[in-house]
């Protein structure tokens, strides 16, 4: 018997640990490439200030990296401890990218992070730059593998169900790695990280400029971050559009919830809702403001494809539930008798097996063979309704992410423009906005993650395995104890991160540098063009 409280607590625990972990990840993804950019300028121009920039921002990156790794570790174990049914069902497929991710994170990333921090006086400039780029590549590649694993949960390709072992069997590594969902997810998420890193560097630099501190250091950091951010934020929007289209193609229930579409309309009428208060119970909006004829071209990229609403999706799910019930009953029979007729019956309905699992919780004693003609309609109805994720949460998490996305484009555009004109200090309001915007990309990332994962419900593996059947069979007390423990521990991590970040950011680069032994102040630039060999930097007068 599945205990729904244990399932809910397992979900809460995973959501909590993932949300906490995701507070750190995007900054790591973005900061590494920003550090690599700064060091590239140091190697090209030979100017000490760029080395100091790499080291100072590198220190803030280091704090975030260390705590981020600690929060990520537990999640890998959670799959085994709290989601053992899930791990059994898809372990073959899911375990592969997860293992590669572990190797990338622990071997490649961590080794090169060590070299990056301690190798300044031991490696040549070129070798150190290569190491910094490898750190950037390593951190982003470890994100790649976890997103490939997550891509499989959203759009399970490259595997098929084996009725003999009752598990998903891995069929194609290529299909898994090159799944369109994994690809778009990877690019959208890493770019979201780039935006987060750029906003962080730009915001802290804006803070220095506002206070007229470390101006030369801050102006250069600001310039680099603003340019890094404007391209990244534009690209995030592009990839967001690609992800939305993919959801339309492979996860229509997620798309319907994201856009709050209750009813299917004749294309290209489908209205795009700017604002709405969706009510999941009555499946209506309590209030909405919408523009007709926008959603079809926006999502489908044409004027003729109908965008299925919740009504049509629930209707089509009913047929799937009936087929799914047949599949699961046949599978059970095959499991005990190995009867070829049972196998044939299973094969005929296999593609909808997951919908049969969904119906299980409503069957008498959670046993599908006890379904009768009398109770079938209500079971099918309830299971079909379950296929729609929570529309209110999905609609608003998506809206807030998109809204923030456009806010970032505007902020970066103004910041890049005034930085290129060297007029930043004439616009204190803009500098203030940049400082206050520091946490917003992290927030957008959390909303994005909620959009992706809430929209996947009620499945852990879309269309194959329902979430309520994926959890382990712990007792409630154990789950409450571990949940409270994690919440406490992770809150300590956040407090430590915030304390250290504020402390070192407030201290600024000068204090940082007086604590760090210096290499010679000026080194010969790799490219010796006129203008870049300005030896006035040798005295570090900017400090």
């Amino acid at each position: 018997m599945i205990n729904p409280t244990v399932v809910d607590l397992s979900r809460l625990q995973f959501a909590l640990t993932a949300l906490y972990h995701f507070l750190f990840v995007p900054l790591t993804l973005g900061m590494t490439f920003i550090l690599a950019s700064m060091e590239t300028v140091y190697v090209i121009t030979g100017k000490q200030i760029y080395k100091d920039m790499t080291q100072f921002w590198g220190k803030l990156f280091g704090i975030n990296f260390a705590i981020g790794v600690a929060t990520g570790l537990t999640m890998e174990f959670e799959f085994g401890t709290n989601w053992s049914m899930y791990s059994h069902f898809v372990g073959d497929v899911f375990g592969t990218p997860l293992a590669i991710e572990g190797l990338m994170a622990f071997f490649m990333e961590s080794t090169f992070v060590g070299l990056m921090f301690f190798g300044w006086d031991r490696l040549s400039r070129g070798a150190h730059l290569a190491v910094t780029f490898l750190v950037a590549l390593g951190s982003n590649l470890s994100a790649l593998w976890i997103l490939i694993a997550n891509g499989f949960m959203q759009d399970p390709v490259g595997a098929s169900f084996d009725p003999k072992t009752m598990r998903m069997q891995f069929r194609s590594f290529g299909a898994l790695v090159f799944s369109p969902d994994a690809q778009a997810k990877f690019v959208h998420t890493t770019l979201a990280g780039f935006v987060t890193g750029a906003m962080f560097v730009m915001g802290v630099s804006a803070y220095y400029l506002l206070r007229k501190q470390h101006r030369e250091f801050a102006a250069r950091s600001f310039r680099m971050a603003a340019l890094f951010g404007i391209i990244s934020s534009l690209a995030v929007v592009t990839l967001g559009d690609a992800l939305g289209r993919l959801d339309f193609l492979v996860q229509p229930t997620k798309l319907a919830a994201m856009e709050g579409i209750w009813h299917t309309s004749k294309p290209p009428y489908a209205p795009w809702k700017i604002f709405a208060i969706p009510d999941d119970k009555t499946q209506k909006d309590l209030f909405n403001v919408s523009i007709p004829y926008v959603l079809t071209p926006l999502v489908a990229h044409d004027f003729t494809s109908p965008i299925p609403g919740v009504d049509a999706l629930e209707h089509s799910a009913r047929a799937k539930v009936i087929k799914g019930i047949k599949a699961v009953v046949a599978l059970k029979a095959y499991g005990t008798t190995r009867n070829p007729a049972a196998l044939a019956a299973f094969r005929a309905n296999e593609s909808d097996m997951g919908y049969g699992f969904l119906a299980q919780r409503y069957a008498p004693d959670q046993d599908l063979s006890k379904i009768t003609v009398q109770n079938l309609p209500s079971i099918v109805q309830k299971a079909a309704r379950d296929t729609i994720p929570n529309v209110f949460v999905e609609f608003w998490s998506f809206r807030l992410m998109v809204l923030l996305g456009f806010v970032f484009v505007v902020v970066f555009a103004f910041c890049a423009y005034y930085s290129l004109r060297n007029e930043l200090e004439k616009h204190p309001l803009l500098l203030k906005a940049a400082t206050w915007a520091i946490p917003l990309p992290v927030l957008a990332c959390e909303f994005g993650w909620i959009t992706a994962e809430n929209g996947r419900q009620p499945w852990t593996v879309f269309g194959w395995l329902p979430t309520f059947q994926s959890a382990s069979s712990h007792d409630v007390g154990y789950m409450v104890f571990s949940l409270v423990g994690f919440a406490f521990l992770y809150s300590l991590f956040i407090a430590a991160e915030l304390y250290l970040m504020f402390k070192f950011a407030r201290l600024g680069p000068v204090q940082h540098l007086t604590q760090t032994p210096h290499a010679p102040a000026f080194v010969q630039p790799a490219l010796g063009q006129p203008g870049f060999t300005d030896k006035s930097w040798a005295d570090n007068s900017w400090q």
Partner: protein
Amino acid sequence: MTNIIRILALAAVLALALMLAVVAGDFGPWYFAWLVGTTMIVLISVAGAVLFETQHAAGDTPYEHSAPTET
């Protein structure tokens, strides 16, 4: 001799990059876009800093003679 080795090493890197580009372009268009896009983002950011130095050398930044302003 070292030059020949260097040229051969660079040629190998080039061949590898081309192969990666062809495979990524064929099977993973978004991966390919990421490789090209990330390189571009880094280069634009670097170009911004180099431009800053040029502006600075030409006296177009407000920081020319700025004395240290630490608190």
